[in-house]
């Protein structure tokens, strides 16, 4: 079988596996967050931190709990990296420099996992295990908790309470992430990912050179890196490293795990609002956009017309591709990692063809709602659905409603602020970097490709993706500091708007469906949401896309 056939077979198997998990996992997620019973370990934890698990929180209190939790997490992670040379299993590595430590702390707490460092030459085993990997669990749990609180906005009525953040984040970690991570980690280790605490080994190669072989508990970290849509690799080359992603099976399994929870969350939404067809409609939107991204990147990476002589000779865009997996697996991975907020890579995104890379950038700019990051994709697509029913209501002159709640001007203000916040953050940061000497000093590729690299960097950071085009010196202090702020505001400002919207919806009285209600469970609505997504993002980012990847591709 050729590599293209193998790639499409992998895609078909992915669709089948994700479809098989949709109902059971989605039902389980709904049960985790609606169950009245606490596990013993959870009760012990609530007692330890002094939480009254029955105390529901108003949206703003829920949000302040998230901010307080994340604030402490950033400071803890920053301190841990700074003193790692005092910690055991640090492999002789010095403390992380202040700017890199701060950028990394902001990155892992916001579920971004943007890495301005090479893991194997910067982070000791304990820093990675007790700092970065812990945040890979917790930041994912925070994202899903926000989505669940938003769903409660549709479920509840005449209340300003959205649940208890501490209960949600604990249950998500204990009942969902840890059990799947244990099973998935064992599968990855059985598949060949390394898991040890060996010191780095220096060996002499056949040509007489010396090479350092790193180690580490990689398999157990690799699973949550993908399951939690984090993406921060143990090694610098991420999932292109043979110790992290040894073979085509683990490659497929990694893609499966990074799509697993985001694709099942619409089912949890349908279950919680007691209308499973609402979940099917949203997952259909996600599948359409994901499949289009996979098809688009695969086409341009296999198409030899725009890549020059080297591409023609290799029969595909081979540069930057991990030869163990080939171009089709690179395309499938690149599309899947950018439509989620994962950011793990198995090939070099800077080496994608201009249009292939442009699609990856467009995926990120979509706000990663197809299926998006864990939780973040769910609340993102719910807000898009709200915008869609509003647009539909304008067209036919009806009061817009979604899942039994009226979409009034106040809800639309929250939705508009949600969507405006990310472009403002991304384009302001990119504009500052292009327009100032301090920003320009780190731009190594002039012209359209350089512009794409800058916009991609800030789009990736603000949307908490974490993948990168290379060619931009983001380890310069300017990009470390600006990037840290972009990640923090890109994560929490949209969450403020999403939870504000949820609070507003929860206070409403439900509206029974009438003859004038737009049915949001039909293929028509699915098509409308896809259209709204493409128009909103297309119009917002068209100038940057036209001057970057389009100009480069058409040159």
């Amino acid at each position, binding site marked *: 079988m050729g590599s293209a056939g193998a790639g499409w077979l992998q895609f078909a198997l992915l669709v089948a596996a994700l479809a098989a998990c949709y109902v059971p996992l989605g039902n389980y997620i709904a049960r985790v967050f609606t169950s009245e019973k606490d596990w013993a370990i959870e009760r012990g934890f609530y007692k330890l931190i002094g939480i009254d698990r029955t105390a529901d929180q108003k949206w703003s209190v829920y949000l302040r709990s998230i*901010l307080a939790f994340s604030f402490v997490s950033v400071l803890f992670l*920053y301190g841990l990296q700074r003193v790692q040379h005092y910690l055991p299993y640090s492999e002789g590595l010095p403390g992380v420099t202040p700017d890199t430590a701060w950028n990394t702390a902001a990155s892992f707490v916001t579920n971004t996992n943007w890495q301005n460092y090479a893991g194997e030459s910067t982070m000791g085993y304990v820093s990675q295990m007790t700092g970065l990997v812990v945040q890979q669990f917790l930041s994912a749990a925070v994202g899903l908790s926000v989505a669940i609180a938003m769903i409660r906005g549709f479920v509840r009525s005449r209340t300003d309470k959205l649940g208890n953040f501490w209960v949600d984040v604990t249950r998500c970690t204990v009942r969902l992430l840890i059990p799947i991570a244990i099973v998935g980690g064992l599968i990855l280790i059985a598949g060949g990912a390394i898991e040890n605490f060996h010191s780095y080994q220096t060996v002499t190669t056949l040509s007489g050179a010396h090479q350092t072989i790193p180690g580490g508990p990689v398999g157990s970290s690799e699973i949550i890196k993908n399951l939690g849509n984090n993406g921060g690799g143990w090694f610098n080359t991420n999932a292109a490293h043979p110790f992290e992603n040894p073979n085509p099976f683990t490659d497929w399994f990694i893609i499966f795990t990074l799509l697993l929870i985001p694709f099942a969350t619409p089912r949890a939404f349908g279950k919680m609002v007691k209308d499973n067809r609402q979940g099917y409609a949203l997952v259909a939107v996600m599948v359409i956009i994901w499949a289009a991204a996979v098809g688009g990147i695969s086409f341009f990476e296999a198409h030899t017309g725009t890549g020059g002589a080297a591409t023609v000779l290799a029969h595909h865009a081979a540069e930057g591709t991990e030869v163990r997996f080939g171009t089709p697996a690179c395309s499938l991975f690149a599309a899947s990692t950018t439509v989620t907020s994962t950011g793990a890579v198995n090939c070099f995104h800077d080496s994608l063809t201009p249009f292939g890379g442009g699609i990856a950038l467009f995926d990120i700019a979509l706000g990663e709602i197809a299926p998006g990051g864990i939780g973040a994709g769910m609340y993102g697509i719910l807000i898009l659905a709200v915008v869609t029913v509003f647009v539909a209501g304008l067209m036919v002159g009806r009061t817009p409603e979604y899942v039994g709640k009226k979409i009034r001007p106040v809800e639309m203000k929250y939705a508009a602020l949600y969507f405006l916040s990310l472009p403002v953050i991304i384009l302001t940061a990119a504009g500052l970097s292009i327009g100032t000497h301090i920003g320009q000093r780190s731009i190594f590729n002039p012209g359209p490709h350089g512009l794409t690299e800058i916009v991609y960097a800030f789009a990736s950071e603000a949307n908490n993706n974490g993948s990168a085009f290379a060619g931009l010196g983001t380890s310069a202090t300017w990009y470390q500091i600006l990037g840290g702020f972009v990640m923090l505001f890109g994560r929490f400002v949209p969450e403020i708007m999403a939870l504000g919207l949820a609070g507003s919806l929860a206070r409403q009285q439900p509206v029974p469906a009438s003859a004038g209600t737009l049915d949001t469970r039909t293929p028509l609505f699915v098509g409308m949401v896809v259209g709204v997504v493409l128009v909103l993002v297309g119009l917002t980012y068209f100038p940057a896309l036209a001057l970057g990847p389009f100009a480069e591709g058409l040159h």
Partner: protein
Amino acid sequence: MWGWDLGFIGMTIGAFLVLWLLVKGVERFER
């Protein structure tokens, strides 16, 4: 180095303070 550490801790406090105030602002807008 300690100066840098204090600076980054200050930046963290500043960033979260802005977010905290934004929540407060949105609450006021609601009323």
